[in-house]
C-alpha cells in the first residue's frame, strides 16, 4: 500500500452521515439477520461456503426479487 487512499473532508462527512443515518433506527430492534449477508458467494473466492460478509473483498448480492422490482424496464 504505497499510496493509500486519503479520504477528503467530503468523503468523511458522507461516511459519518451514512453511518448515523443507518444506525439511528437500529437501536430498538430485534435481530433477524440479513438475508444477503449469510448467502454463500462464489465470486472472487474459490473457497466453498464463503458468505457475503466474510469475504476478503466486497461482494454484493442482488436477489431475483430485487431485480424484478428494481428493473421493471430491463
Amino acid at each position, binding site marked *: 500500500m504505497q499510496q493509500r487512499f486519503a479520504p477528503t473532508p467530503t468523503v468523511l462527512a458522507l461516511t459519518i452521515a451514512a453511518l448515523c443515518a443507518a444506525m439511528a433506527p437500529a437501536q430498538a430492534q*430485534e435481530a433477524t439477520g440479513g438475508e444477503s449477508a449469510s448467502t454463500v458467494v*462464489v*465470486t472472487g473466492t*474459490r473457497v466453498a461456503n464463503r458468505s457475503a460478509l466474510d*469475504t476478503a*473483498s466486497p461482494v454484493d448480492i442482488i436477489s*431475483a426479487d430485487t431485480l424484478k422490482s*428494481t428493473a*421493471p424496464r430491463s
Partner: protein
Amino acid sequence: MSVALPSLNFPRPALTDGTDTIRPATLRGMAPDQSLVLVNSKRRHTSSLVNLNGSIGRGSAAVDLNTIPTAMVKNIEVLRDGAAAQYGSDAISGVVNVRLRTDRDGGEGTFTFGERKTDYSMLNGGAPAGATWGPGPSSRSRTDGQVRTLSAWKGLPWGDSGYVTIAAEAKSQEHTERSGYDLRQQYARVNGAFDPREQTINRYNAWYGEPEMKQKTVFVNAGNTLAGGAKVYGWSSYQLRDALSAGYFRLPQDVRNVQAIYPDGFLPIIASTVEDFSAAAGVSWSVGDWDLDTSLVYGQNRMNYDVVNTLNASYGAASKTSFDAGGFTYKQLVYNLTGVRKFDIGGLASPLNVALGTEARREGYELHAGEPTSWNNGGVLVNGLPAASGAQVFPGFRPANASDTSRTAIGVFADVEANITDKLLASAAVRGEHYNDFGGNVSGKLAARYDFAKQFALRGSAQNGFRAPSLQQQNFTSTSTNFINGIPYEITTFKPLDPVAVALGAQPLKAEKSTNYSLGAVMRFAPLSITVDAYRIKVRDRIVLSENLTSTAVRDYIVRQGFAGVGGGRFFINGVDTTTKGLDIVANLPWNAGAAGRFDFTLAGNVNKTEVTRVPTTAQLAALNPAPILFDRVNVLTLEQGQPKNKITASANWKLNQWGVTARATRYGKVLSPGTTEANDFWINEHTIVDLEGRIALTKKLSLAIGADNVFDQYSETLPFTLNTTNNTPFSNYAPFGSSGRYIYARASYSF
C-alpha cells in the same frame, strides 16, 4: 439494480447509432469494458458493437446485459474489486457474476405493462428574423414508450436430482420522443418569402429518447448428478432483437435531402438486428482430494444494420430509401479446467484452499460489408458539387472494411486462501496469460481480512490487472466520403495497423494495465451491517478512440505520404493514464416490526473521482503545424466528470402478509456534459430520483404490482439552444438517469 450497489451505473445515451439498445454497466466510474461479466462463474461473450459515439464508454465493447432475461436469474453477485489475477482480462474495476436459476420444480409467468407519463421543458431557438412561425411551447406532456413484457420460467426435474430450468421472454418497447420544438427554417424561401408549409410542418421532428425495440429470448440451464458422483451442467441462450433508433432530422431544404423523395424532410432510422447465442457444457468431479471442474463455453453476438427512411443523396430522385449497411459478429470459445483442494497445514487455523487452473480462449471478429449503394456515390451533382455519398445517418461498411480475424489466449492461474489465525484470512492469486497478438501478462493479487471481533473486520487488497485490447478495437473500421471543394476525401476509422494510421503514429494495441489498492471495513451490529470500502485504481495505457483528425494540415500530410484521396480519420490508441479514487458505503438493516410487518432498509453511497494524468501523443502529429490534439478536452472530461461524482441510494422494503412496498430514492451528484471549450461546458446538477412499488398477493399464486420509476418526473436541466442547435436533443446524454421522465407500470405474476 442500483440499490445495493453504490458505484454501479447504467449510462443511458440516446441518438448514438445503436449503442442505445445495449445496456452496459459501469463500476466505480470506470469504462464498461473494465469490468468482467460472468454467467455461472464463466466468462460471458461481449457484444460485437464497439461504442464509437460521444457517450460514456466511448471506445468500449461491453457485455450486453439485456441478453439475459431477469426471469432466468437466481441472483447476481457483484465483486467490487479488481480480480484479474483470478479471472484474467477485463476484471479491473470489478466482476458481475450472473447466477442462473437451478430450479427443478415451480415456475412463474409475468406480464408487465408500462409507459412514460411525463412533462418536460424546452428551450427553443434558431428561428430566423421575421419567422412566420413560433415561438412554440416551452413545455410539453407526453405519454409514450409503452413496454410490454411477457416472461416465464419453469423448473423441470431431470432424473432424481437434476434440473432443467427454462425461461422465455418476449418484450416490445415503443420509442420515447423528447424532441425540442425545432424553430429552424425548414424550407427554402419562395420568391423571397417563407414557404407557407413552415406553418404546418411538424416541428417535433426528432426521436430523442429510448429506442423502439422488439426482443425475444429463450434461456435454458440444466444440471444433474451422475451415478459416480460427477455433476454435469450446461446452459444455452438465444436472443433476437430488432431495434429502431433515429438519427438527426434532415430538414426539407438540407442538401443531404432529395425533395423529390422527402418533400418535408426525413428522420433517418437505424434498424439494428442483434442475434445473440450462447451454449455451455461442463463437468465437475472429484479425484482423490481434488475437486475438478472443466467446461466449454461458446458465445456469439451478431449485429446487422439496416438504414431505413433514408436515402443516398448522390443517387438523387432515383435513390433507394432503405439499405443494408452491413454489420459485425463477435465469437468466443472458452475452455476451462480448474482443480481445487484443501491441504491441512500445521499452524494454520483453517486448511489451505488451493485452486489451480487453466483457461484457453479463442475469439473471432468478422465485419461484413453493406450493399454498394449504402456507401458509394451515384454521381448526382447538387449546385454543381457532388452530393454526399452513402446512406444518410449511417453509411454502410465497404468491402475494403470487411475482415475476418481471430486470436487465441491461454492463461494459467493459482489461487490460495486460508485462515492464518482465527482472525486473519489471507488469499493470494497469480495468473499468467499469453495472447497470440499483443503478448503476455502476469497479474497478482493479495487480499487479507482481519476480524478484530465478530462486529468489526478490516479488509484490503493490493493487485495489478489488465485488459487485453478487444478484437473490436483492433479490427473495426469504417469509411465515409467527404467532399472538400468538390474533391472526394475518405474519412476512416482506421485499424491501428492501417498504413495511414501508422503514418499518423498509431501503434499496435497493447494491454491496459492497472494497479488497485482497496481498504475497507465490515461492521456487524446484528441486525445492522455496514461495509465501507475505499479504493484507488490506477490504469496505464488505457485504449481510447482518438479524435477525428481531419484538419487541412493532417490531410496535406497524409497526401504527401502517398495516400491520395485520404482525408484523415481516427484510430484506437493506447496512452491515457487515469487515477480513480473512491469510497463505497453500504448499510443494511432488516427490522421485524411484528404486527407492523417486516422492513428492510438499505443505504448505499459512493464518491468517486477520476483524474486523467496522461493523454496520448504521436511524434508525427506533433510535427504538424498546427499540431492536432489526439485526445481532446471533451473526452478527457468525459472520463473525469462524465459520471456522477457521488451517488446515494436509500431504499426501504416493507412486507406484511399479502402486502409489500418498495420505496427508493437515488440522489445523483453533479455530472459534467463537457463542451469543446469551457464556455460550452454544461453541468447537470444534483437530482434525486424516487421509485415506488406496491405489491399484493391476491392468492397464493397470483400477485399484482403497480409502481412508478422517477415518480417526480425529473429531467436534467434543458440544454440551451447554443448546445442544441438542431433542437433535436433538448437534454444531455450524460444525464445518469436518462432523459425519458416518469415511467409507470403494472405487473401481474402467476406462479405454477
